[in-house]
């Protein structure tokens, strides 16, 4: 029983890891997969497009220097079901962004989660996200 559970978990985790890069327009080569960084900032641009939308925001660094961040998401059609829209962010919005950074240290990455000024977060939970298939 314990072995079976362990095997199931291992296979599930393996499939998830394998499936992760399969679904974006490009793979995960440039990202530090698994690493998470949370940054507070002010929205500069929310760009809605295919195959990737991106969010640019400025972080006020501790030394007074502004850090200009840019994080990408999947395409608009892919993230609409997760609650994003062309109107999700306005310039000047205060956001808290959890992201997976690029490996080369530049202030860029993939958006994992974002908290909006009203305290709500995106993406919303997706119906059946973990249960439909290994690819999902």
């Amino acid at each position, binding site marked *: 029983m*314990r072995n079976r*559970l*362990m095997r199931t*978990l291992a296979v599930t*985790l*393996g499939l*998830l*890891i394998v*499936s*992760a*890069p*399969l*679904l*974006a*327009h*490009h*793979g*995960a*080569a*440039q*990202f530090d*997969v698994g690493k998470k960084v949370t940054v507070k900032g002010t929205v500069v641009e929310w*760009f809605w*497009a*295919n195959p*990737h939308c*991106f969010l*640019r925001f400025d972080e006020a660094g501790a030394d007074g220097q502004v850090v200009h961040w*840019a994080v990408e*998401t*999947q*395409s608009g*059609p*892919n*993230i*609409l*079901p997760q609650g994003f829209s062309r109107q999700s962010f306005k310039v000047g919005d205060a956001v808290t962004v959890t992201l*997976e950074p*690029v*490996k*080369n*240290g*530049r202030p*860029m990455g*993939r*958006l*994992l*989660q974002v908290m909006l000024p009203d305290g709500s977060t995106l*993406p919303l*939970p*997706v*119906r*059946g*996200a*973990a*249960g*439909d*298939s290994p*690819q*999902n």
Partner: protein
Amino acid sequence: MAKHVLVPTLALVAAFVCSLAVYTQGPLPGAVYDSDRKGEKPGPPPRRDLAGIWEPATAGGGIQGKGALAMESCRRDKATGRYAVQQNPPLTDTGYATVDCLKPEVEPPYTALGLQRVKAHKPVEGYRMVPDAVNNDPILGCDPGGFPRVVLHNFRTSEILQTPTHMVVLYKFQKRYRTIWTDGRELPKDPQQPAWTTADRLPPEPRWWGYSVGKWMDDYTFVARTNGFQDDRTWLDNAGLPQSDTTEVEETYHRVDANHLELSIRITDPKLYTRSWVALDRLRLRLQSANFDIQEMECSPSDQKHYYELFGNLTGLSDAGK
């Protein structure tokens, strides 16, 4: 299992599931998947009828990042006896270090030219993926993806319209369509020099999407054949498998029951492959409500330019690779 193992493991799985949320093609609101109708007993298939809006029966099931079952770099490890993917030596950081390849027997049977072509392609997905900065995938500049790539990678919600003379397939990805003639006409025998020069019909010039004819083999099986591709600028899939002006594609649509359609694709191209091979084996599609609204998924060169200004080179590789 001891709690001290189980809890962190579950937490890790949960964290991973959450972290993937933005990067998956999840179920579309309003769409129905097989998982929503467990235990259903669909009625019999309608006779000679493909019409309707079709979505992969499993959410995300049409997004096949590895490509057309392509195992180009899948090799058996002598030490372990297991099959494994070889990394692309100059760009070892492919993100696929732990991927196994389960079906080496379906590796496409390349000719010398086919092998040369696939090696020249630098895709951003599949086993030979490279970072964006050094890719040469034509669709990332918004060139037409063409056929069968639209099916072999990005088969998203699609609609089939059926008339007495032809089928039209409307694809969500890149918002494109194909016509499959069912009026009895034949494929051009030499698609690069079509013999049809009648005054009332233009010859089928070579095309990005090829030229397609189809017929019912029985009441539930429709087979379409396509040739007349214009050149080798279209790839078969996102993993960079080559296609050429001599490629022929056979699509088989099998109407399984009232709710399902299965789609298979066979590739023939004597220039690139030593024999025909199956690139897609019964992709299961599910019929959706007739009032399901298919989203736009257009490729805009100006959008792409803006994206690449920021994200074109995230790797830290030198600009010489561009």
